[in-house]
């Protein structure tokens, strides 16, 4: 009960502003294991994002996003391609995602985050490129070169697809940067770094591409891997719809057996979801009939979706009955 109240305190600032964190812990993998699409998945879903993975059954090759609990921070080379250099996810969580980018990697927003801004995510180096950049390998150079002065870099460019179009706006994250005049400022990222993605605005999906200063005739020599965790999606309405949302009021909260939606101007479809994403109630309400009577609900947090000609609005509500 206390946690429900605590949650309400967080979300009560605005019922229409909510966040979901994709932390991949729900995969419940054992330590030092990974999923790479070989089990037939096209996407790995966590929170309100879906991460694309491609697995080639013929040759047992993968690209895109894997789910990993690998902890090896010492072994160089592609035999250790799923590990993160910090040996864990954000805040030493067990699970994270390692991406191998052959062309690009795609992250979809979905559910209540579909078409909404992605607030941010945490990025880190995978062990394979980290050790390759630090020590060099048979194909890729040691960053900085023999003198340490080479202006090397390894970076991710994050762009958004929205309304079917790849936008030029991008967020660039440096996984390694040796371009500083003072070599002491050079770094290879070895801890989780938060990346603010709000500037991209609403997105349907995110595209991740990698670039390196170490490029030859065969493309990037640096191993094209990175790790991602705790992707924070926003479930709030877009600014355009905010005016309409401001006129709506959902209550009581907590509720027992019914909800009233005040401020409706037009007929509106509603859907009620539990935290596992299962729809537990649905129907249509209007300015004349603005009550919802969901049946046989357990106590807990639910997500209410309202959709009409003005847009789609989300609310977090708590059912609390004796």
């Amino acid at each position: 009960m206390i946690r429900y109240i605590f949650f309400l305190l967080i979300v009560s600032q605005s019922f229409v502003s909510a966040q979901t964190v994709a932390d991949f812990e729900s995969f419940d993998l054992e330590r030092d294991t990974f999923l790479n699409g070989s089990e037939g998945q096209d996407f790995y879903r966590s929170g309100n994002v879906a991460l694309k993975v491609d697995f080639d059954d013929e040759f047992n090759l993968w690209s895109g996003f894997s789910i990993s609990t690998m902890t090896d921070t010492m072994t160089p080379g592609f035999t250790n391609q799923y590990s993160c250099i910090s040996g864990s996810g954000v805040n030493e969580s067990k699970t994270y995602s390692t991406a191998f980018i052959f062309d690009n990697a795609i992250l979809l927003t979905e559910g209540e985050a579909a078409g909404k801004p992605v607030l941010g995510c945490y990025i880190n180096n995978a062990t394979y490129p980290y050790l390759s950049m630090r020590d060099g390998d048979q194909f890729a150079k040691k960053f900085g070169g023999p003198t340490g002065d080479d202006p090397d870099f390894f970076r991710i460019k994050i762009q958004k697809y929205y309304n079917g179009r790849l936008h030029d706006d991008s967020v660039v994250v440096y996984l390694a940067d040796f371009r500083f005049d003072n070599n002491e400022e050079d770094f290879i990222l070895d801890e989780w770094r938060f990346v603010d993605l709000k500037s991209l605005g609403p997105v349907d999906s995110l595209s991740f591409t990698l670039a390196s200063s170490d490029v030859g005739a065969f493309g990037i020599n640096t191993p094209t891997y990175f790790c991602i965790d705790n992707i924070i999606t926003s479930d709030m309405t877009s600014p355009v719809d905010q005016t309409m949302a401001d006129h709506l009021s959902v209550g009581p909260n907590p509720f027992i057996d019914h909800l009233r939606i005040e401020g409706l101007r037009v007929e509106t479809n509603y859907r009620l979801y539990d935290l596992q994403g299962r729809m537990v109630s649905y129907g249509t309400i209007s300015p004349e009939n603005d009550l919802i009577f969901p049946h046989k609900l357990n106590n807990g947090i639910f997500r209410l979706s309202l959709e009409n000609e003005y847009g789609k609005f989300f609310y977090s509500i708590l059912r609390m009955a004796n």
Partner: protein
Amino acid sequence: MSFVVRIDPGCRIQQDDVLYRLQIIWLIIIAPLQDLIGQADSVILLPQVTVVPGASLTTSTGSIMETRVDTGILDQMPTSLDQWLSDDGLTYIKSYGLGSIATLSLRGGAAQHTAILWNGLPLTNPMLGQMDLSLLPLGLTDRAQLVKGGVASHWGSGAVDGAIRMDNMIGFGKGLKYRLTGNLGSWKRSEGSSEIHWSQEKLSTTTRLFYRSAKNNFKYTPGPGLPEEQLENAQIENFGVLQSLGLKFDDKNILSAYVWWQDSDRGIPATLRQDQSMATQKDNAFRTMMEFRSYWDNNVSQLKLGHFRESLDYRDPLINLSSRSNFNTTLVQLTQQFNYPGPWQFGVDFRFRHTSAYIENYGRDVNEIQWTASGHVTYHNENLRSEIRARQGFFENRIIPIMPSLGLEFEVNDWLELRSRISRNYRVPTLNDRYWQPGGNQDLLPEEGWSEEISVIMNWNAIDMSSNVEVSLFNKNLENWIVWTPITGRPYWGASNLARVWSRGVESSVSFRKRWVDLVTEVKGNLNYIRSTNQERIDQPIIEEGQRLFYVPEWTGNLSAKIIYDEFEFEYQHNWTDEVLGINQRVSSFQVGCVRSGYCMKFEDLSFTVFGEVDNVWNADYFIVEGRPMPGRNFQIGVSIKN
């Protein structure tokens, strides 16, 4: 009958001046032509010359050939195939460092475009389509020969730009002969080889042993202004034994057999792009072959059977990688040559090759059958020799387009000769190209194309002087060049027949030799301009239309000067290589000088030779392959004893 002439090994040929000159002339001019023509009826038996069955009936009319014959004092020094080709400036050798992998680029082609032959059988690794030349010690063979130009109609797949022949020969009636050579050098280099030969009229046996080890932990400067570093994990250890047996049933029927076992273990040093390397590579080869040659009337029949079993074990404990590959090759060659009296000759041959290979990335054992059949007609008179040849090949139930060639050699006068050759050549895709998972493409076509060349050869000979000038112009177009490129929608690269390559150039060489009473001076030089360009734009790997091929220098040159005084020889060689286009960066041009000297002492039937060499005498910092430093000034000294 067809014979090849071998000069008896000796620290110096012991004849009077006239015979000595005759032999020199023989070596420089007649012997190559003899091999070229391969006619028994024109063999000249010189004193001190042993006639032995030749290793191959195959000729290549119209081609330029370079033959190494160990007759001089300095020729006693142990060397591998790549060192010979590199030191003499005969072709560009792409060496990854001292004792490391070495491949060649002949006439602007890739390593896969030169056939490597041992007694006429292809040594080339069928998985890679090339051969590591550093693993081929010349001390295990009697003769090495470089044939330039398209000779696929002679030797089949891969002989697009030429061929390297390493031949063993069986001698009879020579009694007991032996040779021991040992040398020590910088970075704990030690090398030894021995050869024991015994033969009587009907039976012959030769045992050759070879050993080489070195730490190769030389210091190098990684870049301008940077402190010296020491190369680690560059050690090598090679051991090999080659046993030859010959049985002469009678003067017309000779059986020879060879067993060659070799083991190599070496470290793969870190490149300049990485901090350390613990990678190692072990190469093991067990090669057997048997040849039966029968002379009847004016005809020669030859049957060769060979079986090669080779493995490569690459390990990198740093990245937990272990990769082992192995292959077995069974070869059958049947050759029939009809030598009718008169100007016309005919020949046919049939070649069969079965390869079975395994590497984890194939996912299964791969078996492949190739067979080819060829025929040729030659016409020769006093001044002209011409040859038409054609080879029809099949692999994996697919027909390879017929590969014809036409060669002409015309002696304009005593000192001028013209040679010309036009040929169609091909290379069957390697097993990796077809079966590697992922990306192997079993639908690949053979690379194929035409090459043309014309050569002018001038020789001037006098009692105490000889000189030679050769200039060759060549042109080659190769279609269906196999390139690995990214496959759309797949996370890997795959092989395809995407590229077209155009190679053209001029090769020239000059030599001058003069005798001043007891002193002989010799100057040689060669200068080559080769431009080899891609004719198709490819997105990845990034190749622009008209771009030069990777690791093919446009200019290479070599100049050497030698003096021979009594039993003393001194030689300086200077090589210059133009910059090349590397995968990640250009590799600068470089010049390397080398000094060699030797002295021979005679004790009755025994000759004792001391020799020494200073490589990279000017201590140049240079690279042949990007990120792979080459050694600075280094030394070796050795002795050779033989009867």
